């Protein structure tokens, strides 16, 4: 992104805008509608949900002022306070304080507040006003406030604070013109509002402020805001972010903290309380309530949805509906895609002269990518459901219901949201762990998230179920039953390992969850569909790059070196090829699980991504696509595959063992890369590969050998 080079030290005078593009930051509490407003202003397709923590990384977009001049917008993760308690809140704090080298420090700040809960939302605004930057306050969700019988006196608040205040309904686009007009102003006033820190804390604030100005090169106003933050946060390293504090500031902070500890006074608590007192004074007479509001629609829905008994039934029905629709609605588009991929491969074979290039394109590229593309409809349905649950507000309720169960394994309900997203894909799931405050809980969630059966495992399960069951038509119920068994196994595995890690490696205090449940909203189909399409395009990109690349490399590795005898069969050719040799090398370690060297090739190549297993098997067994149901030719080929002594390779037991292997094994390069980024070390992704693949081998060994001993 081509951002203007204006990362100025906050100590300098704010530069005049001139021709430079002004940068606005959007901040606010979780779920107050920042992302919806960001979308409305920029038109950018960005993920919007109705549960806290949808935006876990900043997003940058562009809009235009009333005069047609560009304005940069940074959408920041929701935060309750600048004293960050979780990694996503730390992103917000660091961008606002100008600590992120990769992001320009915003010139101006758009504070979004939920008009239905003004006092709580004003806490963050109050901290932001301390930063001494021009602020525009957006009172969002005015429609919901009206419905709840709340009347906010906007003009009065504007007079009190001395900054522009815009009443807005971002969902309906109301107030956007006024907001753009305010954003286009060249001269935004600074806030008039001042508050006094408690007298006993004032000397500490003054001393820290002076040290931060002199030794840490902060501007006086930012230094005051940061001094207040340091005094309300006990983890100074986290507060200081990437830039460590000077020894002088650290020394002063320690001296004051020791002194207060000795006195037994909780000054951090009184700082929060005195801020709230200032806000209360500000809010007196600001909001009027019409009569006594009865139970809201959300209250009435919650009476059922979070009920100790009905709540579980609702959650169970939602999950069942989710999985059933993945398997039923997807079938028609899947068959359509499979048929067209096959048509393309046949056309290619007819149009080109026989030779390696033709085989490369038809058997390598088209067959490989096609076998993965087939699963696009299922992935779309999965993301559609996840999007729907997020945007209605149900996701936070699911976390509430699951908290009791999660606490049994030492985690809390907040870990449920990342784990549920991991059913779609572990990558957004791992990103969503940023909302978890406790670093150990977050790490445990990251470590077990890839055990939840993601959509990339679906192709593998479907092919193996088809190979496992006799007859051409796989009964729907059996298919769903086995599939649910695999999902249950992965989920149990995730919970089991979480329990183990919380008791051994990552022992910690009992989980403390505090989670806001947003009011229910009608899902905005546009947002859900946009999010689904974004995911789909990521999947297609992967199919077009990684999977296409691997399919071509794999075709090469199975085709060369050529067998000396030109009349050699396909099986002889593969045995002679590079891939065959690698598979043979691996065979001794996987033979106790019932896998032969050809399955070994699939295990190696699908380390890139699990769904590659299907295309690899397609290439290894030389399957040509046909117009029939997509899994049929591959299933036939798998059934025919035999050991040198003629015994079939893909017995029911081997298919089951192989599915279990894919439940547990860490077979996804993209996940490894994300875990490395999120934990900032190679230690945890390597540990994850070792424990997941190790346990996969162990479980498969037990299952296969027990099955053999029982005569299967």
């Amino acid at each position, binding site marked *: 992104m081509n951002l203007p080079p204006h990362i100025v030290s906050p100590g300098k005078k704010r530069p005049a805008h001139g021709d430079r593009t002004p940068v606005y930051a959007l901040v606010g509490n979780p779920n107050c509608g920042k992302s919806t407003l960001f979308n409305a202003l920029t038109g950018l397709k960005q993920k919007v949900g109705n549960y806290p923590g949808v935006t876990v990384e900043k997003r940058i977009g562009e809009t235009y002022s009333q005069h047609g001049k560009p304005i940069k917008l940074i959408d920041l993760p929701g935060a309750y306070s600048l004293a960050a308690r979780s990694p996503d809140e730390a992103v917000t704090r660091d961008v606002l304080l100008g600590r992120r080298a990769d992001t320009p420090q915003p010139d101006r700040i758009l504070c979004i507040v939920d008009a239905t809960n003004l006092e709580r939302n004003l806490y963050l605004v109050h901290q932001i006003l301390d930063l001494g930057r021009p602020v525009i306050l957006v009172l969002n969700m005015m429609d919901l406030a009206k419905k709840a019988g709340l009347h906010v006196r906007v003009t009065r608040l504007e007079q009190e604070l001395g900054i522009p205040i815009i009443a807005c309904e971002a969902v309906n686009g109301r107030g956007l013109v006024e907001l753009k007009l305010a954003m286009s102003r060249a001269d935004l006033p600074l806030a008039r509002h001042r508050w006094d820190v408690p007298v006993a804390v004032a000397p500490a604030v003054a001393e820290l402020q002076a040290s931060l100005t002199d030794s840490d090169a902060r501007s006086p106003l930012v230094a005051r805001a940061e001094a207040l933050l340091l005094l309300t946060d006990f983890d100074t390293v986290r507060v200081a972010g990437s830039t460590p504090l000077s020894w002088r500031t650290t020394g002063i902070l320690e001296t004051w903290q020791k002194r207060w500890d000795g006195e037994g006074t909780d000054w951090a*608590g009184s700082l*929060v*309380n005195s801020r709230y007192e200032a806000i209360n004074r500000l809010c007196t007479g600001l909001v009027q309530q019409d009569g006594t509001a009865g139970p809201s629609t959300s209250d009435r829905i919650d009476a059922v949805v979070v009920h100790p008994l009905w709540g579980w039934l609702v959650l169970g029905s939602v999950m069942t509906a989710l999985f059933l629709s993945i398997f039923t609605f997807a079938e028609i588009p899947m068959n359509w895609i499979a048929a067209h991929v096959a048509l393309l491969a046949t056309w290619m074979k007819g149009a080109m002269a026989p030779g390696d290039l033709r085989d490369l394109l038809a058997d390598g590229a088209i067959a490989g990518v096609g076998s993965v593309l087939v699963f696009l409809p299922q992935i779309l349905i999965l993301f559609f459901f996840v999007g729907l649950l997020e945007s209605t507000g149900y996701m936070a309720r699911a976390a*509430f219901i699951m*908290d009791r169960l999660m*606490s049994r394994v030492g985690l809390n309900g907040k870990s449920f949201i990342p784990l549920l997203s991991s059913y779609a894909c572990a990558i957004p799931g791992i990103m969503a762990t940023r909302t978890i405050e406790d670093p150990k809980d977050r790490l445990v969630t990251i470590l077990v998230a890839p055990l939840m059966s993601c959509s990339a495992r679906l192709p593998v399960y479907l092919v193996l179920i088809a190979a496992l069951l006799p007859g051409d038509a796989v009964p729907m119920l059996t298919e769903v039953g086995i599939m649910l068994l695999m999902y249950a196994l992965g989920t149990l595995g995730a919970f089991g390992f979480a329990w183990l890690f919380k008791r051994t490696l990552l022992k910690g205090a009992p989980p403390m969850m*505090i989670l806001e*449940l947003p009011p229910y909203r009608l899902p905005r189909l546009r947002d859900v569909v946009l999010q689904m399409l974004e995911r789909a395009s990521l999947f297609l990109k992967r199919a077009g790059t990684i999977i296409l690349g691997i399919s071509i490399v794999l075709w090469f590795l199975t085709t060369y070196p050529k067998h000396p005898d030109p009349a050699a069969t396909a099986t002889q050719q593969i045995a002679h090829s590079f891939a065959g040799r690698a598979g043979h090398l691996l065979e001794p370690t996987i033979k106790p699980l019932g896998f032969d060297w050809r399955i070994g090739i699939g295990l190696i190549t699908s380390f890139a991504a699990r769904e590659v297993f299907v295309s690899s098997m397609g290439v290894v067994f030389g399957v040509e696509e046909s117009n029939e149901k997509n899994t049929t030719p591959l299933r036939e080929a798998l059934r025919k595959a035999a050991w040198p002594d003629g015994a079939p390779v893909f017995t029911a037991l081997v298919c089951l063992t192989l599915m279990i292997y894919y439940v547990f094994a860490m077979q996804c390069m993209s996940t490894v890369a994300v875990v490395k980024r999120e934990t900032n070390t190679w230690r945890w992704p390597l540990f994850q590969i070792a424990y997941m693949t190790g346990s996969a081998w162990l479980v498969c060994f037990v299952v296969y050998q027990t099955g053999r001993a029982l005569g299967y």
Partner: protein
Amino acid sequence: MPTTAPHLSPLCELPVGATARVCELKGDENFCQRVREMGFGEAALVTKVSGSTTSLCQVNGTRIALSHDAAMNILVERLPDSAR
């Protein structure tokens, strides 16, 4: 550890439908700070909506879910039903 006044009880023990005033926060300092910052600090009025292990509460028009251990650390004074 300061002793707890006898009329205070943990939030998790508050019956569903009852309203109480938050009087004391115990335990981890980071947790206490966050609870205060979310408007759940001393003197806040809280109504229990649901839950025995995980509590669901209404504070200042917001619904907040608290795990059992979190609710154990929030000591409240129950208000008579007539005061609601």
